[in-house]
Protein backbone atom coordinates (compact mmCIF):
# COMPACT_ATOMS: atom_id res chain seq x y z
CA UNK A 1 0.00 0.00 0.00
CA UNK A 2 1.39 3.39 -0.98
CA UNK A 3 1.90 5.35 2.22
CA UNK A 4 3.69 8.36 0.77
CA UNK A 5 1.24 11.18 1.50
CA UNK A 6 3.09 13.63 -0.76
CA UNK A 7 2.65 11.26 -3.69
CA UNK A 8 -1.06 10.85 -2.92
CA UNK A 9 -1.49 14.63 -2.72
CA UNK A 10 0.27 15.06 -6.08
CA UNK A 11 -1.94 12.29 -7.49
CA UNK A 12 -5.03 14.13 -6.24
CA UNK A 13 -3.88 17.44 -7.81
CA UNK A 14 -3.02 15.66 -11.08
CA UNK A 15 -6.41 13.96 -11.07
CA UNK A 16 -8.17 17.34 -10.79
CA UNK A 17 -6.33 18.41 -13.95
CA UNK A 18 -7.06 15.11 -15.73
CA UNK A 19 -10.77 15.36 -14.84
CA UNK A 20 -10.83 18.97 -16.10
CA UNK A 21 -9.24 18.07 -19.46
CA UNK A 22 -11.41 14.94 -19.81
CA UNK A 23 -14.62 16.90 -19.36
CA UNK A 24 -13.64 19.53 -21.93
CA UNK A 25 -12.27 17.17 -24.57
CA UNK A 26 -14.75 14.32 -23.95
CA UNK A 27 -11.93 11.82 -23.58
CA UNK A 28 -11.72 9.26 -20.79
CA UNK A 29 -9.00 9.91 -18.26
CA UNK A 30 -7.31 6.48 -18.49
CA UNK A 31 -4.94 7.48 -21.26
CA UNK A 32 -3.63 10.35 -19.11
CA UNK A 33 -3.77 8.65 -15.70
CA UNK A 34 -1.31 5.84 -16.42
CA UNK A 35 1.47 8.00 -18.00
CA UNK A 36 1.03 10.59 -15.24
CA UNK A 37 1.45 7.95 -12.53
CA UNK A 38 4.37 6.20 -14.25
CA UNK A 39 6.36 9.17 -15.57
CA UNK A 40 5.77 11.78 -12.88
CA UNK A 41 5.02 9.80 -9.71
CA UNK A 42 7.25 6.81 -10.54
CA UNK A 43 4.57 4.12 -10.04
CA UNK A 44 5.16 0.59 -11.27
CA UNK A 45 3.41 0.47 -14.67
CA UNK A 46 1.29 -2.57 -13.72
CA UNK A 47 0.11 -0.94 -10.46
CA UNK A 48 -0.69 2.27 -12.39
CA UNK A 49 -2.76 0.29 -14.93
CA UNK A 50 -4.63 -1.53 -12.13
CA UNK A 51 -5.35 1.71 -10.23
CA UNK A 52 -6.44 3.43 -13.45
CA UNK A 53 -8.88 0.60 -14.28
CA UNK A 54 -10.59 0.83 -10.90
CA UNK A 55 -10.75 4.60 -11.19
CA UNK A 56 -12.32 4.18 -14.64
CA UNK A 57 -15.04 2.07 -12.92
CA UNK A 58 -15.77 5.00 -10.58
CA UNK A 59 -15.86 7.71 -13.25
CA UNK A 60 -17.76 5.72 -15.90
CA UNK A 61 -20.32 4.47 -13.35
CA UNK A 62 -21.02 8.03 -12.24
CA UNK A 63 -21.58 9.12 -15.86
CA UNK A 64 -23.46 5.95 -16.89
CA UNK A 65 -25.82 6.37 -13.95
CA UNK A 66 -27.04 9.67 -15.42
CA UNK A 67 -27.25 8.23 -18.95
CA UNK A 68 -29.24 5.18 -17.73
CA UNK A 69 -31.70 7.38 -15.83
CA UNK A 70 -32.22 9.55 -18.91
CA UNK A 71 -32.73 6.48 -21.12
CA UNK A 72 -29.80 7.35 -23.40
CA UNK A 73 -28.12 3.92 -23.19
CA UNK A 74 -28.90 1.48 -26.02
CA UNK A 75 -29.05 -1.64 -23.83
CA UNK A 76 -29.40 -4.13 -26.68
CA UNK A 77 -26.22 -2.88 -28.39
CA UNK A 78 -24.33 -2.65 -25.08
CA UNK A 79 -25.25 -6.19 -24.07
CA UNK A 80 -24.51 -7.55 -27.54
CA UNK A 81 -20.98 -6.12 -27.53
CA UNK A 82 -20.11 -6.40 -23.84
CA UNK A 83 -19.48 -10.18 -23.49
CA UNK A 84 -16.63 -10.09 -26.02
CA UNK A 85 -15.32 -6.81 -24.58
CA UNK A 86 -15.26 -8.19 -21.03
CA UNK A 87 -13.57 -11.37 -22.21
CA UNK A 88 -10.99 -9.22 -24.01
CA UNK A 89 -10.37 -7.17 -20.85
CA UNK A 90 -9.73 -10.30 -18.78
CA UNK A 91 -7.33 -11.69 -21.42
CA UNK A 92 -5.66 -8.25 -21.72
CA UNK A 93 -5.09 -8.07 -17.96
CA UNK A 94 -3.49 -11.53 -18.00
CA UNK A 95 -1.27 -10.53 -20.95
CA UNK A 96 -0.01 -7.45 -19.07
CA UNK A 97 0.64 -9.47 -15.90
CA UNK A 98 2.63 -12.02 -17.91
CA UNK A 99 4.71 -9.49 -19.89
CA UNK A 100 7.92 -7.81 -18.69
CA UNK A 101 7.52 -4.18 -17.54
CA UNK A 102 9.61 -2.83 -20.47
CA UNK A 103 7.34 -4.48 -23.04
CA UNK A 104 4.20 -3.13 -21.33
CA UNK A 105 5.69 0.39 -21.29
CA UNK A 106 6.66 0.13 -24.96
CA UNK A 107 3.21 -1.11 -26.00
CA UNK A 108 1.58 1.63 -23.92
CA UNK A 109 3.77 4.22 -25.63
CA UNK A 110 2.69 2.99 -29.06
CA UNK A 111 -1.00 3.01 -28.02
CA UNK A 112 -0.68 6.60 -26.76
CA UNK A 113 0.86 7.66 -30.08
CA UNK A 114 -2.12 6.11 -31.91
CA UNK A 115 -4.62 7.82 -29.57
CA UNK A 116 -2.89 11.20 -29.97
CA UNK A 117 -2.96 10.88 -33.79
CA UNK A 118 -6.71 10.07 -33.62
CA UNK A 119 -7.27 13.07 -31.37
CA UNK A 120 -5.20 15.34 -33.64
CA UNK A 121 -7.38 14.32 -36.60
CA UNK A 122 -10.47 15.06 -34.51
CA UNK A 123 -9.08 18.47 -33.48
CA UNK A 124 -8.33 19.39 -37.08
CA UNK A 125 -11.41 17.95 -38.77
CA UNK A 126 -13.95 18.25 -35.94
CA UNK A 127 -16.40 15.61 -34.70
CA UNK A 128 -18.44 13.87 -37.42
CA UNK A 129 -22.02 15.10 -37.41
CA UNK A 130 -25.07 12.96 -38.20
CA UNK A 131 -25.04 9.24 -38.96
CA UNK A 132 -22.30 7.74 -41.11
CA UNK A 133 -22.78 3.98 -41.31
CA UNK A 134 -20.29 1.80 -43.15
CA UNK A 135 -22.13 -0.76 -45.25
CA UNK A 136 -20.29 -4.03 -44.82
CA UNK A 137 -21.50 -7.62 -44.69
CA UNK A 138 -21.42 -9.10 -41.15
CA UNK A 139 -21.30 -5.65 -39.57
CA UNK A 140 -22.44 -7.00 -36.20
CA UNK A 141 -19.77 -9.70 -36.17
CA UNK A 142 -17.15 -7.08 -37.03
CA UNK A 143 -18.45 -4.89 -34.20
CA UNK A 144 -18.21 -7.81 -31.76
CA UNK A 145 -14.63 -8.54 -32.88
CA UNK A 146 -13.63 -4.86 -32.66
CA UNK A 147 -15.13 -4.72 -29.16
CA UNK A 148 -12.99 -7.71 -28.20
CA UNK A 149 -9.88 -5.70 -29.17
CA UNK A 150 -11.24 -2.68 -27.30
CA UNK A 151 -11.49 -4.98 -24.26
CA UNK A 152 -7.93 -6.23 -24.70
CA UNK A 153 -6.59 -2.66 -24.85
CA UNK A 154 -8.63 -1.76 -21.77
CA UNK A 155 -7.36 -4.72 -19.71
CA UNK A 156 -3.79 -4.30 -20.95
CA UNK A 157 -3.38 -0.55 -20.52
CA UNK A 158 -5.96 0.59 -17.95
CA UNK A 159 -8.00 2.70 -20.36
CA UNK A 160 -11.78 2.65 -20.76
CA UNK A 161 -11.64 1.76 -24.44
CA UNK A 162 -14.25 4.33 -25.46
CA UNK A 163 -11.83 5.57 -28.12
CA UNK A 164 -12.53 2.29 -30.00
CA UNK A 165 -16.10 1.56 -28.82
CA UNK A 166 -17.66 4.87 -29.86
CA UNK A 167 -16.48 4.69 -33.52
CA UNK A 168 -17.53 1.00 -33.65
CA UNK A 169 -21.03 1.85 -32.45
CA UNK A 170 -21.46 4.84 -34.75
CA UNK A 171 -19.86 3.40 -37.90
CA UNK A 172 -20.85 -0.27 -37.65
CA UNK A 173 -23.97 -0.30 -35.48
CA UNK A 174 -25.43 2.98 -36.80
CA UNK A 175 -25.98 4.62 -33.41
CA UNK A 176 -26.15 8.43 -33.15
CA UNK A 177 -23.00 9.86 -31.51
CA UNK A 178 -24.84 10.87 -28.28
CA UNK A 179 -26.29 7.37 -27.81
CA UNK A 180 -22.92 5.80 -28.67
CA UNK A 181 -21.15 7.88 -26.01
CA UNK A 182 -23.78 6.98 -23.38
CA UNK A 183 -23.74 3.28 -24.34
CA UNK A 184 -19.93 3.21 -24.34
CA UNK A 185 -19.90 4.82 -20.89
CA UNK A 186 -22.18 2.06 -19.55
CA UNK A 187 -20.03 -0.64 -21.17
CA UNK A 188 -16.75 0.85 -19.93
CA UNK A 189 -17.73 0.21 -16.29
CA UNK A 190 -18.36 -3.49 -16.96
CA UNK A 191 -15.17 -3.83 -19.03
CA UNK A 192 -13.00 -2.10 -16.43
CA UNK A 193 -14.56 -4.28 -13.70
CA UNK A 194 -13.68 -7.45 -15.63
CA UNK A 195 -10.04 -6.42 -16.03
CA UNK A 196 -9.83 -4.77 -12.61
CA UNK A 197 -10.85 -7.92 -10.73
CA UNK A 198 -7.92 -9.82 -12.28
CA UNK A 199 -5.47 -7.14 -11.01
CA UNK A 200 -7.28 -7.05 -7.64
CA UNK A 201 -6.89 -10.82 -7.24
CA UNK A 202 -3.17 -10.52 -8.05
CA UNK A 203 -2.72 -7.73 -5.46
CA UNK A 204 -1.80 -4.94 -7.90
CA UNK A 205 -4.46 -2.46 -6.80
CA UNK A 206 -3.44 0.28 -4.38
CA UNK A 207 -6.71 1.52 -2.77
CA UNK A 208 -5.36 4.87 -1.40
CA UNK A 209 -4.23 5.77 -4.93
CA UNK A 210 -7.67 4.83 -6.34
CA UNK A 211 -9.25 7.07 -3.70
CA UNK A 212 -6.91 10.02 -4.43
CA UNK A 213 -7.47 9.69 -8.20
CA UNK A 214 -11.26 9.31 -7.96
CA UNK A 215 -11.64 12.17 -5.46
CA UNK A 216 -9.58 14.43 -7.72
CA UNK A 217 -11.25 13.53 -11.00
CA UNK A 218 -14.82 14.19 -9.81
CA UNK A 219 -14.30 17.92 -8.90
CA UNK A 220 -11.96 18.32 -11.90
CA UNK A 221 -14.62 17.02 -14.28
CA UNK A 222 -17.25 19.26 -12.65
CA UNK A 223 -14.98 22.31 -13.12
CA UNK A 224 -14.28 21.24 -16.70
CA UNK A 225 -17.98 20.87 -17.49
CA UNK A 226 -18.59 24.41 -16.18
CA UNK A 227 -15.67 25.79 -18.20
CA UNK A 228 -17.01 24.43 -21.51
CA UNK A 229 -17.94 27.39 -23.66
CA UNK A 230 -15.56 29.71 -21.85
CA UNK A 231 -12.44 27.83 -22.98
CA UNK A 232 -11.60 26.98 -26.59
CA UNK A 233 -12.02 23.17 -26.61
CA UNK A 234 -9.89 22.91 -29.78
CA UNK A 235 -6.98 24.54 -27.96
CA UNK A 236 -7.39 22.14 -25.01
CA UNK A 237 -7.61 19.18 -27.40
CA UNK A 238 -4.40 20.26 -29.16
CA UNK A 239 -2.66 20.69 -25.78
CA UNK A 240 -3.93 17.23 -24.81
CA UNK A 241 -2.47 15.78 -28.02
CA UNK A 242 0.90 17.47 -27.33
CA UNK A 243 1.01 16.17 -23.73
CA UNK A 244 -0.03 12.66 -24.79
CA UNK A 245 2.54 12.55 -27.60
CA UNK A 246 5.26 13.77 -25.21
CA UNK A 247 4.25 11.10 -22.65
CA UNK A 248 4.29 8.42 -25.34
CA UNK A 249 7.77 9.40 -26.56
CA UNK A 250 9.05 9.64 -22.98
CA UNK A 251 7.71 6.13 -22.27
CA UNK A 252 9.37 4.76 -25.40
CA UNK A 253 12.61 6.56 -24.45
CA UNK A 254 12.61 4.89 -21.00
CA UNK A 255 12.18 1.52 -22.72
CA UNK A 256 15.10 2.12 -25.10
CA UNK A 257 17.53 3.47 -22.50
Amino acid at each position, binding site marked *: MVEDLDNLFLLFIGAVGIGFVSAITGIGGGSLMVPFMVLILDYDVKVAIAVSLLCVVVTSSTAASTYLRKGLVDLKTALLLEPSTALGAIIGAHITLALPVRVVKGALGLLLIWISIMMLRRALKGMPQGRIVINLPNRKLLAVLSSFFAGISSGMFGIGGGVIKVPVMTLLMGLPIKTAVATSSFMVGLTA*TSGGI*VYLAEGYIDPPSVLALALGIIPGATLGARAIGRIKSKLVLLSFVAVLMFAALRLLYTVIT
Partner: protein
Amino acid sequence: MKLDLKASSIILRYGVIAGLIIVLIGIATYSYLKTQIVIFIGTLTIALTPLISLTSICIIMAKKRRLDVLLLSLATLIIILISIITSLD
Protein backbone atom coordinates in the same frame (compact mmCIF):
# COMPACT_ATOMS: atom_id res chain seq x y z
CA MET B 1 -40.28 1.35 -25.56
CA LYS B 2 -38.27 3.42 -23.06
CA LEU B 3 -37.19 1.32 -20.08
CA ASP B 4 -37.22 2.62 -16.52
CA LEU B 5 -33.78 1.75 -15.17
CA LYS B 6 -33.84 4.07 -12.15
CA ALA B 7 -32.85 1.27 -9.73
CA SER B 8 -29.82 0.25 -11.83
CA SER B 9 -28.84 3.91 -12.14
CA ILE B 10 -29.03 4.40 -8.35
CA ILE B 11 -26.95 1.25 -7.74
CA LEU B 12 -24.26 2.51 -10.13
CA ARG B 13 -24.03 5.97 -8.60
CA TYR B 14 -24.24 5.09 -4.90
CA GLY B 15 -22.37 1.78 -5.20
CA VAL B 16 -19.10 3.45 -6.18
CA ILE B 17 -19.63 6.27 -3.69
CA ALA B 18 -20.20 3.69 -0.91
CA GLY B 19 -17.05 1.85 -2.02
CA LEU B 20 -14.97 5.04 -1.87
CA ILE B 21 -16.36 5.88 1.60
CA ILE B 22 -15.55 2.35 2.86
CA VAL B 23 -11.98 2.64 1.48
CA LEU B 24 -11.65 6.03 3.24
CA ILE B 25 -12.92 4.55 6.54
CA GLY B 26 -10.55 1.60 6.07
CA ILE B 27 -7.55 3.89 5.59
CA ALA B 28 -8.57 6.07 8.55
CA THR B 29 -8.96 3.07 10.88
CA TYR B 30 -5.98 1.10 9.52
CA SER B 31 -3.59 2.22 12.25
CA TYR B 32 -6.09 1.17 14.98
CA LEU B 33 -7.44 -2.06 13.49
CA LYS B 34 -4.12 -3.23 11.96
CA THR B 35 -6.05 -4.92 9.18
CA GLN B 36 -6.70 -4.08 5.54
CA ILE B 37 -9.98 -6.01 5.38
CA VAL B 38 -12.15 -2.83 5.42
CA ILE B 39 -10.05 -1.32 2.61
CA PHE B 40 -10.38 -4.58 0.64
CA ILE B 41 -14.18 -4.62 1.12
CA GLY B 42 -14.35 -1.01 -0.17
CA THR B 43 -12.22 -1.84 -3.21
CA LEU B 44 -14.33 -4.92 -3.94
CA THR B 45 -17.52 -2.85 -3.58
CA ILE B 46 -16.24 -0.44 -6.26
CA ALA B 47 -15.16 -3.29 -8.55
CA LEU B 48 -18.44 -5.20 -8.25
CA THR B 49 -20.84 -2.25 -8.54
CA PRO B 50 -21.28 -2.49 -12.37
CA LEU B 51 -21.97 -6.23 -12.06
CA ILE B 52 -24.60 -5.65 -9.35
CA SER B 53 -26.18 -2.99 -11.55
CA LEU B 54 -26.25 -5.47 -14.45
CA THR B 55 -27.93 -8.04 -12.16
CA SER B 56 -30.60 -5.45 -11.33
CA ILE B 57 -31.14 -4.91 -15.09
CA CYS B 58 -31.70 -8.68 -15.44
CA ILE B 59 -34.32 -8.58 -12.65
CA ILE B 60 -36.07 -5.53 -14.17
CA MET B 61 -36.17 -7.21 -17.60
CA ALA B 62 -37.55 -10.43 -16.07
CA LYS B 63 -40.29 -8.46 -14.30
CA LYS B 64 -41.19 -6.60 -17.51
CA ARG B 65 -41.02 -9.81 -19.56
CA ARG B 66 -38.55 -8.26 -22.01
CA LEU B 67 -37.10 -11.61 -23.03
CA ASP B 68 -34.68 -10.29 -25.69
CA VAL B 69 -32.87 -7.88 -23.35
CA LEU B 70 -33.16 -10.36 -20.44
CA LEU B 71 -31.37 -13.08 -22.42
CA LEU B 72 -28.65 -10.68 -23.56
CA SER B 73 -28.09 -9.32 -20.05
CA LEU B 74 -28.05 -12.82 -18.55
CA ALA B 75 -25.59 -13.96 -21.20
CA THR B 76 -23.35 -10.96 -20.47
CA LEU B 77 -23.50 -11.57 -16.72
CA ILE B 78 -22.77 -15.30 -17.06
CA ILE B 79 -19.88 -14.78 -19.50
CA ILE B 80 -18.29 -12.14 -17.26
CA LEU B 81 -18.71 -14.30 -14.13
CA ILE B 82 -17.35 -17.45 -15.82
CA SER B 83 -14.41 -15.51 -17.29
CA ILE B 84 -13.60 -14.01 -13.90
CA ILE B 85 -13.91 -17.32 -12.02
CA THR B 86 -11.78 -19.22 -14.52
CA SER B 87 -9.17 -16.46 -14.61
CA LEU B 88 -8.89 -16.49 -10.82
CA ASP B 89 -8.24 -20.24 -10.63
